[in-house]
């Protein structure tokens, strides 16, 4: 016959089975088993069930477990394959951005100095040929020949025509865009000489 103590006894099955029930409670439970056949047989079934659970075999690892594990460890330890992109992406971003910005500023400044307003050169003194201080020409002179500057031979570079090929030297000095360098202050006296004297053209502009 079930008693009030039976519910308590049931709570003690698990620690009693594991040998972790306190000694006083152990004695009480064992005494209860002596007087309560219901709890006694219930505990017998409990014990049998969990002894069978404890007898469950281990679930074995697969035959390839160790091989696969070794391969994964090797993969982790191998140095990463490097590609140009890997190297490039390691450069801190501000570096290429800064380089690009500097380049843009340089190009901008270069083109701007050619587009600035009316040159403010002094009128050539009578009898004195205007000095070739034209910045465009100067610029032209400092440019590589393929960009319209002086080539190794000192010749003024040729300017590419709109048609694509190089044109014959113009009779008037021209700027980077092929615009003749003449204005109200200049007197075009003739084609510039290959070297030196460019007094016929005063295209100085402030740089």
């Amino acid at each position: 016959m079930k008693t009030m103590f039976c519910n308590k006894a049931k709570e003690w099955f698990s620690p009693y089975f594991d040998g972790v029930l306190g000694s006083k409670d152990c004695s009480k439970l064992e005494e209860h088993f002596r007087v309560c056949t219901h709890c006694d047989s219930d505990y017998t079934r409990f014990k049998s069930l969990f002894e069978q659970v404890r007898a469950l075999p281990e679930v074995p690892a697969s035959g390839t477990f160790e091989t696969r594990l070794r391969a994964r460890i090797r993969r982790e330890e191998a140095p990463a394959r490097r590609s140009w992109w890997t190297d490039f992406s390691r450069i801190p971003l501000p570096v290429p951005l800064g380089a690009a910005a500097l380049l843009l500023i340089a190009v901008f400044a270069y083109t701007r100095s050619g587009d600035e307003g009316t040159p403010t050169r002094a009128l050539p003194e009578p009898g004195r040929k205007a000095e070739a201080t034209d910045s465009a020409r100067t610029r032209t002179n400092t440019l590589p020949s393929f960009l319209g500057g002086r080539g190794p031979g000192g010749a003024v570079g040729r300017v590419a025509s709109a048609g694509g090929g190089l044109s014959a030297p113009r009779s008037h000095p021209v700027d980077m865009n092929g615009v003749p360098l003449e204005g109200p202050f200049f007197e075009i006296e003739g084609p510039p000489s290959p070297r030196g004297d460019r007094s016929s053209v005063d295209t100085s502009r402030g740089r």
Partner: protein
Amino acid sequence: MSAKGPMGERTDEELMFLYRDGVEEAFTELVRRYKNKIVSTAYRVVGDYAKAEDVSQETFLRVHRNADRYRSIAKFSTWIYTIALNVARNELRNTKRKRLVSLDAFGRDSDSDSEPGTYDIPDESSMPDQDVETRELRRIFNDAIKKLPERYRTVFVLRDVQGLTYEEMAEILKVPKGTVKSRMNRARLKFRELIEPILGDSSVDR
């Protein structure tokens, strides 16, 4: 620490220190000792053999990665089980997020491959000494373990399947020993509720 002497005679902690010092063989021995225990534990927690192997591989990888940090404050077994359970829990969380786990009704034929959580444990057929009844009982037990709520399932597997002590479980789960006892009690009561209708044991409380 000298690497002399067979690895099989070393304690787990000695092997771990040897591995930390660069002795590869020590790690091989540790894997040999623990791979089945970890796969077994992981299988009964996550309920799927392929995932259990993944969990176990990840467990050993973490042991490898953290070898430098190993200190003998805790037993190696406690440490590796802690790692395994953490990885298994993560796997369960990911699985829950991906799909609903359908609970099989007990007693239904569960050999269908399409059912989630079914498994094919290797070498099951290579145990000819196990008769059909024993294998069927084992299947019923494994199914019941899968049905336990996660925190009951964990203590149940650690204690009744892997044989860890209450002290070890308290350390692994980072809960007081009293909590372990209480969960163990609830886990077994729940397991009995699941099992007894199948086994035909009707000795429930009157």
